[in-house]
């Protein structure tokens, strides 16, 4: 199997869906001639033409609202936000129209919004955010956060074929840093099924996105100390795989939830609350949450490092749990 970067896997998945399905088109700022700020759609306009790879005006509302209308007319739009942060400018269209149209009026809105998210390279407060929790709270939206190249491809194809609005968060810090085997053929990864990233017996660590790798490093460090950590990569937050999480916690009896988004009201709270409610009798320790502190994402490298959960933070949290 070919080894590909996370970014290449996204690009490949998108290209193959566009080749297979004429209803799929992409619209966003600078996605055409320039190939996108991160070059995910490089070469696409040559291949598919300017009406399937559309350079939009600087108009997030028109992009997302426009995708909604096109989807209602039978297209399968894929919108690219230049950075996930800018989705705040289309919040209304997602929560008001796309999320509710099926329930209210019976009209499906099969759109995919691609959101380059996450920090780690001094992007500052507006090019580093992880706004997935905000959307995971809105009934009617689906939220996807792949961590591996193979999932990035399979989940993107699933997002495009899903009959609902899907927010697809692609973590910028994984784009070129993470490489792995990706099947050539078309495949989908179903929503709502966590990936067992690493099996273990002592503590369940539930996470997603770039934090999977932070978790993994922490787990490796603790291996030597005889602490066996099971890592579940949720892959999708809406829907999220409650069963897999509860199953794991019932086995290990301890849980840590880790995310890069800020702590208070982050989606980790939902997971921790659910574990606390539904696995109460299995728990041998409080469910711990590790997340970014409740501040905007700072720019300066030392501040940003202190902001994003680091391997040491996770190691410390796991140890605390192990000793509990």
């Amino acid at each position, binding site marked *: 199997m070919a080894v590909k970067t996370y970014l290449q896997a996204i690009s490949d998945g998108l290209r193959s869906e566009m080749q297979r399905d004429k*209803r799929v*088109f992409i*619209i966003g700022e600078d996605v055409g001639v320039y190939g996108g700020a991160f070059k995910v759609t490089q070469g696409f306009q040559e291949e598919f033409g300017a*009406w*399937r790879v*559309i350079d*939009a*005006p600087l*108009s997030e*509302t*028109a992009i*997302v*609202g*426009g*995708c*909604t*209308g*096109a*989807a*209602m*007319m*039978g*297209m399968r*739009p894929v919108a690219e936000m230049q950075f996930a942060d800018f989705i705040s400018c289309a919040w*209304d*269209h997602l929560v*008001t*129209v796309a999320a*509710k*149209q*099926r*329930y*209210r*009026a*019976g*009209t*499906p*809105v*099969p759109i995919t919004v691609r959101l380059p998210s996450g920090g780690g390279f001094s992007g500052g407060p507006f090019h580093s955010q992880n706004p997935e929790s905000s959307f995971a709270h809105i*009934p*009617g939206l*689906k939220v996807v956060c792949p961590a591996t190249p193979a999932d990035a491809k399979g989940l993107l194809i699933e997002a495009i074929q899903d*009959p*609902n609005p899907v927010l697809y968060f692609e973590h910028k810090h994984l784009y070129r840093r993470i490489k792995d085997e990706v099947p050539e053929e078309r495949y989908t990864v179903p929503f709502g099924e966590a990936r067992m990233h690493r099996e273990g017996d002592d503590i369940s660590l539930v996470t997603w996105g770039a934090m999977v790798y932070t978790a993994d490093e922490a787990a490796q460090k603790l291996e030597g100390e005889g602490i066996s950590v099971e890592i579940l990569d949720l892959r999708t937050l809406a829907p999220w795989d409650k069963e897999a999480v509860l199953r794991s916690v019932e086995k290990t009896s301890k849980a840590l939830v880790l995310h890069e988004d800020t702590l208070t009201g982050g989606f980790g709270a939902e997971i921790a609350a659910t574990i606390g409610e539904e696995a109460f009798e299995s728990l041998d320790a409080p469910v711990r949450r590790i997340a970014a502190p409740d501040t905007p994402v700072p720019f300066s490298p030392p501040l940003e490092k202190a902001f994003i959960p680091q391997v040491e933070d996770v190691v410390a949290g796991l140890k605390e749990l192990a000793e509990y």
Partner: protein
Amino acid sequence: MAVAREAEPVSSLTEIKEAGLDREDLLGIYRHMLLTRGIEERGHILYKQGKIPGSFYTGRGNEAASVGIATAMGPEDVGTPLHRDMGVHIVRGVEPWRIFAQFMGRADGPTKGKDGNVHMADDRLGLIAMVSHLPAMLPVAVGCALAFRIREEKRVALTWFGEGASARGDTHEGMNLAGVRRLPVVFICDNNQWAYSTPTHLEYACEHIADRAKAYGFEGVVVDGTDVLAVYREAKAAIEKARDGGGPTLIECLTLRMEGHAVHDDASYVPKEMFEEWAKRDPLERYRTWLRENAEFTDEEEDEIRSQVKKLLNDAVQRADESPDPDVDTLLDGVYATPEDLDTPHHK
């Protein structure tokens, strides 16, 4: 200094025949306007009877504008009418009893009790249900037009917005995208001079909303929204222009909102004289006179249409009232679409 063209009234039967309407169409328009008003009047009664939960909005004074525009739409065209545009639903053929069921929150309303008021549409009739947030459906309609353009279909999207909603960013982003890409979309401003209690000079500072079309690279036209035939003619021209690749048009229909913002509002902030003046230009009365003067509209014809409409409404109210409340078990249904939902011709 106006920038937009100001449309003339339609002068004769010949002129309107050239614009595509025969005498039967003309009577159909009258019937649709009567039905539009009748539905809203009945709704008002139902509301007073306590049969309509929540609030209740009407488009009294806007019947010519909504019916005129919708009459000009082609069968494959799509639209996103708003809360003053009942006439659009009527012309596209929604059954009146379903509308009353909608008002009453019953299981047979188009939204099955999930939403109320005229927050509804039958997508098989080419309409898309509005949300409250104004004018969020405008960029959505632009997206419909984008789909038509990508697939090189000769279809047009129509979208409505109030002069109040013209102040929202959605109006701008949608029109700008449509202008830049010359998409087949027609924008209709229902300028009824009030946005709830807010008068036009606090909503915009140009002379006509239609003047703004130039800012987006297309044409604007102001039309008397109480003149159904002038509205029809302008809409027809704009729609066919869009269909032929000529890009968007912005049509501003000037009317007065003849009632309060919603049923609870007595509109005491509207000067009395304004109501009096515009009452003289009642769109139904005006059209009736035109038909008599230009199309030999007879008493018998009028009586027949009136009694048909009356019966239709009576039956509709009764049938709607027989519709049950939605089953509480449906509460959780349909938040997410299933693949089968996409099993429509559109989505193949």
